[in-house]
């Protein structure tokens, strides 16, 4: 990432950090944090049984559930559902980013309409999102106006309202042509068979009203109840944005239905005719066995805002949409050891700031230190570190090559 993008990203991060400061010290936030920590740790610990409960309850609610073991399977399942469409509408989803869904569908000639403003700008710019909730925070207003002007082939003023209006007009003009909406979900309530989605713009509400609503979610997003799910997303919102609640929380537990005529169940009133949930494993079962802590994540992005390495390198420190050190841990399980090494396994200073910032205290530096041990066993380390090791063994000093 270039210096100017980094500077703008860090400026956005600083504003966010200041906005959150008082709220993070609030007693209610601290209590919520303790509750969510327990919910997440417990959910991950009992993930396999939660998964069975979730499948049963979602299906009995009328949601179609598909298990996808990896990115390839998930993309294929979704492609089969959308292949007859010219365009599908999509909301921001880090899980969709993880399987590179947009790139895949577009390579198969299905256009993807990103409906989140930040995501749409990043899609126009063909750059990488820099924060899980604020994907465009590396772009300043002048640059955004340039990007939008060139993409929409009109003169858009470098002024926030003008940019918003132009992008909104473009998106709302295209939405009536879309029959399928693709979203992620922030939490899945297993016992209730419900999907919880959080947004500020209102775009997800529009997508849930399309004929088919496809939801892609990692199996790590499961929690027992809807009350737990709401706690998780409230905390996520606080840590990600500095606000106590998002503008919208949509809960989807079934396709649209009514029983207003003699209690006879009729489907297909206003909302989706079909709701299809793609539950993605993609290495999470392996992560569960070897480093379950990396699955506690609630997706708030607090770990990167003050990370010395992320604020210096940007999204190249991390893996796809899993930004920062935790993303590097996950990359080992989603992909392999080489990808983990290339994602920045050795670029972390192990300072522990991310754990300090993380609302559920994921011990990322400890996980990375442990992964380095495995990496060395597989022959993946830096040459410089090998040199130091050799020096130490020969001379008891990291700096001296030969004994005097």
């Amino acid at each position, binding site marked *: 990432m270039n210096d100017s993008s980094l500077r703008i990203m860090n400026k956005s991060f600083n504003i966010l950090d200041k906005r959150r400061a008082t709220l993070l010290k609030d007693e209610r936030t601290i209590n919520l944090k303790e509750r969510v920590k327990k919910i997440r740790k417990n959910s991950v610990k009992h993930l396999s049984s939660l998964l069975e409960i979730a499948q049963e309850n979602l299906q009995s609610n009328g949601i179609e559930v598909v298990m996808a073991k990896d990115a390839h399977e998930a993309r294929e399942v979704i492609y089969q559902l959308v292949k007859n469409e010219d365009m599908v509408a999509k909301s921001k989803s880090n899980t969709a980013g993880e399987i590179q869904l947009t790139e895949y569908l577009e390579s198969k000639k299905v256009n993807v309409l990103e409906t989140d403003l930040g995501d749409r700008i990043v899609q126009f710019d063909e750059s990488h999102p820099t924060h899980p909730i604020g994907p465009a925070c590396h772009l300043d207003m002048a640059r955004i106006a340039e990007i939008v002007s060139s993409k929409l082939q009109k003169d858009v003023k470098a002024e926030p309202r003008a940019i918003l209006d132009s992008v909104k007009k473009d998106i709302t003009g295209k939405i009536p042509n879309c029959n399928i909406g693709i979203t992620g979900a922030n939490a899945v309530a297993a016992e209730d068979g419900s999907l919880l989605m959080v947004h500020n713009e209102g775009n997800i509400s529009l997508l849930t009203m399309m004929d088919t609503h496809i939801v892609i979610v990692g199996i790590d997003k499961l929690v027992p109840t809807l009350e737990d799910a709401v706690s998780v997303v409230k905390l996520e919102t606080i840590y990600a944005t500095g606000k106590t609640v998002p503008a919208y929380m949509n809960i989807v537990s079934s396709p649209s239905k009514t029983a207003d005529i003699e209690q006879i169940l009729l489907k297909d009133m206003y909302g989706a005719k079909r709701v299809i949930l793609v539950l993605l494993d993609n290495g999470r079962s392996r992560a569960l066995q070897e480093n379950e802590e990396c699955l506690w994540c609630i997706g708030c992005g607090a770990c990167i805002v003050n990370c010395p390495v992320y604020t210096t390198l940007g999204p190249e420190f991390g893996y796809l949409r899993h930004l920062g050190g935790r993303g590097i841990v996950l990359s080992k399980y989603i992909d392999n050891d080489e990808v983990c090494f290339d994602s920045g396994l050795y670029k972390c*200073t192990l300072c522990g700031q991310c754990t300090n910032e993380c609302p559920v205290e994921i011990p990322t530096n400890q996980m990375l230190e442990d992964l380095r041990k495995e990496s060395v066993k597989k022959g993946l380390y830096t040459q410089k570190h090998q040199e130091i090791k050799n020096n130490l063994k020969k001379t008891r000093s990291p700096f001296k090559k030969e004994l005097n």
Partner: protein
Amino acid sequence: MIYFRGCLSREKLKEIPRATEKLLEIARIDYRVLEDEGCCGSVLLRTGFMDDALEIMEDTYEDVKGERVLVSCAGCYMTFKEDYPVLLGKKVDVIHTSHLFWELLKNDKISPSLDLDAVTYHDPCHLGRHMGEYETPRQVIKYLSKIIEMDSNRANSRCCGAGGGVRSGFPDLSSEIARMRVEDAVKTGARHLVTCCPFCIHNLKSAQESHGTREDRNDEDMDILDLSQFLLLGLKKEVKQ
């Protein structure tokens, strides 16, 4: 007591053991340094060379067992204190220089003057966030001077960029992080940056030198010192009076 200087102080930042040994002499502390001082194992542990680290740690343990060990380096401190018991099953009676200095001040073994300029303090990750030791070095500093805290301090302290093998493996990245930390320090207006870890000092100093002297900055004026050097400054003032 063994004074285990640690690799970086022993071989590159010799002013740290010089100041520390001077203080030990002034306080009439009986100590020795090891003739062929080895390695605590930290650099190998953090970069994943587990088997080699264990070998070296066993070796070093033989040199230090049964004695009190004084260290200047936050990395040595954490490794002896945390990793030796867990990985080798062997306890080392280790203290950091900041602990010793505080003891000496409390017990009037050394009595410096009280009028040094205000300083800012950088928490080394291995001493602060990892070992929870935020206050002892501050107490030592407050004995001689005032502390102007940086915006990020204690548990939230920004890393100097040297840790985890990043300085050796990715020097540009490491130096850029150090530059940000030096800027944090410059913003306080303090003339001295004091810290307790040779790796932090080495990295912050080299960032200061390489990014150096932009017109709107005055970081070339800022002295980056180990706690031992700072304490000795306080003593020297008194000697002069």
